[in-house]
C-alpha cells in the first residue's frame, strides 16, 4: 500500500474540517428544531399555521389547521366566508375552548398543535371554496400579519 503524501494528508484534514463544520451547523439546527424557534429560523406563515383541509359533511364543514410547535393562533382572529361570496350560507363557527393567554391585547384564547373549526351549513348548500382568515404568533415574541387563504371544500371520506 502506498504511503500518503503530505498533500494528501492535508486534503483529508481539510475535507474532514469542512464536513465537521457543515454537519455541526446542520445537526445543531436539527436538534433545535424540536425546541422553540428563534428569530433566525421562523417558519413562513403557511408552515407555522398550515391550513390542512376543509371537509364537507352532511350539514357542516370542518376546517382544520396543523400548528407548528412554538406557534399559536388567536381565536378572535379567525374568520370564514363562502367563496365566491354569498354562494352558501354559513352559520357561526363552532370552536373548541382554547388555552388562556393574557398579553397586551387583553385576555385571549389561543390554539396550538391542531385546530378544527366547525361551520354549520344553512339552506343545504355548501360552497365549493372557503375564504379563511387567521392570525397568530410565535412564542418567542413575534407575530405574523393576518393571513387570508382560499381553500377548496372537499367531500369527507367515510
Amino acid at each position, binding site marked *: 500500500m502506498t504511503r500518503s503524501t503530505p498533500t494528501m494528508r492535508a486534503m483529508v*484534514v481539510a475535507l474532514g*474540517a469542512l464536513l465537521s*463544520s457543515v*454537519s455541526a451547523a446542520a445537526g445543531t439546527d436539527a436538534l433545535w428544531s424540536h425546541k422553540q424557534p428563534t428569530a433566525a429560523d421562523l417558519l413562513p406563515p403557511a408552515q407555522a399555521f398550515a391550513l390542512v383541509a376543509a371537509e364537507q359533511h352532511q350539514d357542516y364543514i370542518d376546517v382544520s389547521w396543523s400548528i407548528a410547535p412554538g406557534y399559536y393562533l388567536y381565536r378572535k382572529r379567525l374568520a370564514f366566508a363562502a367563496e365566491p361570496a354569498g354562494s352558501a350560507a354559513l352559520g357561526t363557527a363552532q370552536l373548541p375552548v382554547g388555552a388562556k393567554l393574557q398579553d397586551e391585547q387583553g385576555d385571549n384564547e389561543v390554539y396550538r398543535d391542531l385546530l378544527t373549526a366547525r361551520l354549520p351549513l344553512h339552506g343545504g348548500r355548501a360552497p365549493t371554496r372557503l375564504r379563511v382568515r387567521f392570525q397568530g404568533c410565535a412564542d*418567542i415574541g*413575534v407575530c*405574523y*400579519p393576518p393571513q387570508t387563504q382560499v381553500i377548496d371544500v372537499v367531500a369527507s371520506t367515510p
Partner: protein
Amino acid sequence: MRTILLFLFICIVAAGGGFFAYRHFAHAGNVVGKPLPAGIQMNDLDGKPHALEEYRGKLLLLNFWATWCGPCLHEIPELVKLQTEFGPRGLQIVGPAVDDPDAVRGMLGTLGINYPVLITAEPETMIKTMEQLDNPVGGLPFSLLVGADGIIIRRQIGEFSAGELREMISSHLPT
C-alpha cells in the same frame, strides 16, 4: 498518532467555527452593512407621503408594528422614552404600521407615540416593503437601525430588550 490528534483538533475547531459562523450570519440577515434601499415611500396619518431618505443625517430606528401585535405594543413604551431622551441628540424613531389606518389612529392616543407613524393604503404594501428589507416571513415587531450615513447597522425580528436597545442607540448616535 500525531497526525490523528491534529486532525481531530482541526475538526473540533472547524466544527465550532462553522457553528458560530452559521448562527451569526443566520441572525444578521443580508441587509446589514448595506444602504437602506432608495425610494421607499409611505404616508403619514394625514395622507402626506414621506420618503425614508428624509431622515438621512439622523440615527434612524425603523420599528414596524401593528395594533394586533402584542410584542409590538409591549415594546413601544420603551421607544417613546428613547425618542424623548435621545431625540435631541439625533435619534429619529419611525413606526411604519402594518395595519389598517383606522385601527392605527384608534390606538395612537393610548400608546402616546411621540414619533412619526407611517402607513400604506394596504397593509400588503407594507409587508412587501418588509420583504425588501429582509423580513421574508413578515414577522413583527421588525426593526432596522440605520446610521446617519444611510447604512443599515442592525436588523431585528422580535423585541429588543430595553437595555440592548438603549446601548445600541447610544453607541451609534451621530457625533
